[in-house]
């Protein structure tokens, strides 16, 4: 019987090149992207053909969700701390140092200032479950106006961006625009998604 020896070939593949590719892609994503700030509410923005990009920093973002709640956010840790201290003086609500630190890390919130210490005390994982009622913007109690005013006092160059949901009703939008006009903000932006012009 002729001995037919099947030549054994090595079955291991050298994975060195693959790891290089993987880490290259990883480095790209780490450097070219920014973490999406976790917002307490998901907003579906309407689309527009406008292609102006939102500036990177110094933005006040007023988010309106479809149930007409108003959420407020300003970027910059230092700005947030300063604004909180001023608001706490104005509204006579005290915050502990730990809460102030927590606030400087918080991106968006939507509660009246009286409930803010409680919100800051809940752990970030539990915060998503808290039902935030929205920053008040009524004629009697316009906290939104004060937040905007104090933020502009701290940082003069902030731009205001309004991010609304498609189904947000007009009265709330009108109230926000009237508040902005009242506080001398006459130039602001609406955040929209991309649309191809027909």
């Amino acid at each position, binding site marked *: 019987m002729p001995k037919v020896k099947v030549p054994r070939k090595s079955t*291991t593949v*050298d*994975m*060195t090149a*693959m*790891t290089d590719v*993987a*880490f290259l*892609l*990883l480095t790209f*994503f*780490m450097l*070219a*992207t*920014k*973490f*999406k700030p976790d917002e307490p509410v998901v907003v579906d*923005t*309407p*689309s*527009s*053909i*406008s*292609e*102006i*990009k*939102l500036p*990177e920093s110094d933005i006040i973002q007023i988010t*309106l969700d479809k149930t007409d709640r108003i959420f407020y956010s300003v970027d910059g840790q230092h700005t947030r701390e300063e604004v909180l201290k001023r608001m706490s003086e104005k509204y006579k609500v005290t915050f502990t140092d730990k809460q102030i630190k927590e606030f400087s890390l918080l991106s968006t919130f939507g509660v009246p200032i009286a409930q803010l210490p409680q919100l800051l005390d809940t752990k970030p994982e539990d915060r998503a479950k808290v039902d935030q009622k929205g920053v008040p913007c009524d004629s009697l109690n316009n906290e939104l106006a004060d937040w905007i005013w104090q933020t502009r006092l701290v940082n003069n160059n902030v731009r205001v*961006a309004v*991010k*609304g*949901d*498609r*189904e*947000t*009703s*007009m*009265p709330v*939008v*009108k109230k926000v*625009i009237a508040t*902005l*006009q*009242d506080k*001398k903000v*006459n*130039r*602001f*932006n*609406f*955040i*929209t*998604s*991309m*649309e191809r*012009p*027909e």
Partner: protein
Amino acid sequence: MAEIEGGGGGGGKHKGGKKRGKKLSTRVDFTPMVDLGFLLITFFMLTTSMNKPQTMEINMPVKDEVEEKDKPKIKASQAITLLLAKDDKVVYYFVDVVTGEPGPPMITDYSKGGVRATLIKENRLRNPNLDSITVYKRMLNEGAINEEKYRGYISNIKSYKDGLIVIIKAADNAKYKNMIDILDEMLICNIGRYAIVDISDIEKDMLKTVNLQ
């Protein structure tokens, strides 16, 4: 290729008598490392975003500073009023030149043949230079003129003295996307002057008559 001759060399140099530890192969299998790498990539792909959000710029007039008599008067023939009503409908009317009273309300919607067709038609009637905008756009795309010149030409055409002026009033049961859509139409139809104002009671009654209150 980086390969370390571990096992083979040890076997060949084996000396009898001397106690030699069995040389183990030093080839490391990198497959789990690749898994880790791709896991991290997937994590970053899902939790970060590369594109910055788009925005539309809005300029509102300064409130309460201009006296009523100082506001520039607009001719009744120049203006069209758009009322944003519920169910994604737009009601528009012109002010009658002779009587000064609002004319009959017409209903349209946000589709291409709706409010856009009306606005383009009315703008074209009043602004004879409007069609040059498409010509300029083509010239820009071909590279015949640069961006700055293009913008200059466009703003000249848009600020034509007798061009269409649009007054936008939103009813309380309209949606935010209606307003964004209308502002979009302002950009698409190259409307030079428009304003967002509060709706009045007369107009609310007008909406009632067309069953869109």
